[in-house]
C-alpha cells in the first residue's frame, strides 16, 4: 500500500512535467501543424541560460525567470529565422529541419558548456513528507504541481477569455479568413512558438534537477515520453496533452516500481501502440478528421 501511494505521487509529479512538455508540442502543432522535434534541445538551451544566471547571481529564481525568457526568445528566433521558411508541401520537411536544429543546438551547447553532466540544485527539498511510514509528496513535487497547474490555467484563460487567444485560434484554424478579418496570422504564429518554447523551458527547469543533471542531451528521453503523451492525448488537444502526460508519468512510475525500471520505456511504447490501434487520433481527438 505505502509503495503504491509513493509510486502514484511520484508518477503524478513526473507526469506533470510531461504534461507541460506535451502542452508545448500541442501548442505548436495547433498553430503550425509541425511536431517540433527540436523542443527538447531548445528547452535545454534555455535551462543552460537559466543556470548560468543562477550560478552568477546565486539566485535560483532569477535563473528560473531567465530560462523562461530565454525560451520565449528562442521560440521567436526559431520561428522567424528557420521554421517560417520551411516548405509545407510535405509534413516531413518540418520534422527534418527540426531534427537538424537539435543537432545544431546540442553541438553549440556542447561547445559552450562542455559535454559533461552538471549537477543542479532544486529550489526546494526533494525529501517526501511522511505520514506514518507512507512517503507522500516532497516540497519540490508541490512546486512542480503548482507551476504546471499555473501554466495550464494561464493558457486556458489566454485561449478562451482573451482577444489574443481568439486571434491565435482563428489564425490556426482558418488563416486566410483570419487575415481578411484583420488578424496578423504571421504574428500569431510567432507568438505560438514563443509561448510553446517558454512552456517547454519551464518543463526543462522542472525536470532537469530530478534526472542526471544538465547536459546538452538532457531532454532527449523526456521528449520521447512527452511526445508519447501528446500523441496519446491527441496532438490537437491541450486537455489530451495534460491527461496523456499524467498517464505516461503514472505508467512509468508503476512499471519502474513494480516490474523493473529498465522495461519502463517499453511500457510507454506499448501504450502508444495500443492507443494508436484503438483510437488513431488519440484519446481526446475531435470527431472531425483533419489532414495535417
Amino acid at each position, binding site marked *: 500500500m505505502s509503495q503504491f501511494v509513493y509510486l502514484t505521487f511520484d508518477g503524478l509529479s513526473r507526469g506533470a512535467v510531461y504534461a507541460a512538455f506535451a502542452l508545448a508540442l500541442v501548442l505548436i502543432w495547433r498553430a503550425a501543424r509541425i511536431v517540433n522535434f527540436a523542443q527538447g534541445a531548445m528547452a535545454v538551451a534555455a535551462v543552460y541560460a537559466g543556470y548560468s544566471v543562477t550560478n552568477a547571481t546565486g539566485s535560483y529564481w532569477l535563473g528560473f525567470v531567465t530560462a523562461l525568457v530565454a525560451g520565449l526568445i528562442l521560440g521567436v528566433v526559431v520561428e522567424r529565422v528557420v521554421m517560417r521558411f520551411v516548405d509545407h508541401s510535405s509534413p516531413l520537411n518540418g520534422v527534418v529541419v527540426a531534427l537538424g536544429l537539435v543537432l545544431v543546438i546540442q553541438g553549440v551547447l556542447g561547445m559552450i558548456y562542455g559535454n559533461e553532466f552538471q549537477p543542479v540544485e532544486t529550489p526546494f527539498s526533494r525529501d517526501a513528507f511522511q505520514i506514518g511510514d507512507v512517503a507522500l509528496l516532497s516540497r519540490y513535487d508541490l512546486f512542480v504541481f503548482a507551476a504546471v497547474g499555473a501554466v495550464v490555467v494561464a493558457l486556458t484563460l489566454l485561449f478562451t477569455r482573451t482577444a489574443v487567444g481568439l486571434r491565435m485560434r482563428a489564425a490556426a484554424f482558418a488563416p486566410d*479568413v483570419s*487575415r*481578411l*478579418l*484583420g488578424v496578423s*496570422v504571421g504574428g500569431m504564429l510567432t507568438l505560438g512558438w514563443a509561448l510553446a518554447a517558454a512552456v517547454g523551458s519551464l518543463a526543462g527547469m522542472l525536470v532537469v534537477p530530478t534526472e542526471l543533471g544538465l547536459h546538452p542531451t538532457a531532454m532527449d528521453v523526456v521528449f520521447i515520453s512527452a511526445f508519447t503523451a501528446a500523441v496519446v492525448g491527441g496532438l490537437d488537444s491541450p486537455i489530451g496533452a495534460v491527461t496523456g502526460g499524467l498517464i505516461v508519468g503514472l505508467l512509468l512510475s508503476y512499471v519502474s516500481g513494480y516490474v523493473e525500471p529498465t522495461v519502463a520505456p517499453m511500457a510507454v511504447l506499448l501504450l502508444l501502440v495500443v492507443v494508436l490501434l484503438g483510437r488513431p487520433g488519440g484519446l481526446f481527438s475531435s470527431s472531425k478528421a483533419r489532414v495535417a
Partner: protein
Amino acid sequence: MTSPLLQVEGLTAGYGAAPVLHDVNLTVQPGEIVAVLGANGAGKTTLLRTLSGLVRSSRGSVVFDGADLRSTKVEQMVRRGIAHVPEGRGVVTELTVDENLRLGGLWRRDQADAKRALDEVYELFPALAQRRAFAGHQLSGGERQMLALGRALIGRPRLLLLDEPSLGLAPKITAQIMALLRDLQKRTGLAVLLVEQNVRSALSIADEGVVLALGRVVTRNRASALRDDADLRHAYLGF
C-alpha cells in the same frame, strides 16, 4: 458624378505563370451593388481574391477611395473599409457563433461600436442569437451564410466583396439574403461587389452587371439591360 468608390483598371492576375484575369476594368460607385456574372472558371472568385490581396496581381491598378490597394496587405483591407466574405462562407467552423462574430470586430479601435454592431447583427439574424454558443460546424448552410455576412458587417465596411452567397442554399433563403443586401444598401449606403452564378437573383438586386468570360470582361451594363438582353443571356449566362 461622384468619384467611384472602387476603380479597377487593366487588372491582370492569377496563380503562377498563367494569368486567370486579363485586363479587367470595373467600377463600383458608393452605395452601388455590382454583380459579377459568368460561368464556372470565368475568374469571378479570383477577381475578389485579387481585390482583397489574397492573389497577387501582375498588372493594372486597383484604387479604393483614392488610395492604391495593390500595395495594401490583406490584414489591412478590413481597416480600409473592405470586407471580403469568401466562397464557402469562411465561417471558422471550430469557433462558436459568438467567437466568429467577435473576431469580426477585434481589429476595431472603437470597441464600443463593435459591441453595438454585434448586437445589431444578433437583431438582424435572430437565428444566430439563439445559437451563440454553437460551433460553426453545427450550423446549417443558411445560418453559416448569415454568420459570415453578419461578421463582415461588424466591421461596418463601405464595400462588401461577397462570393457566391447563394451556393448550396434553398431558393427561399437566397431570396432573404438578397433582400437583406438591398436593405443594407438602402439603409447604410453599403456598396457590394457580388459574385454569383445565380444570375437571376443577382440581377434582381444589382444596379450594374459585369459579365466575365475566361477572365475577360465581355460586357458591362445596367442590370436591367442585362436582364433584357436575350442574346447575352444565352451566350454567357445560360438562361
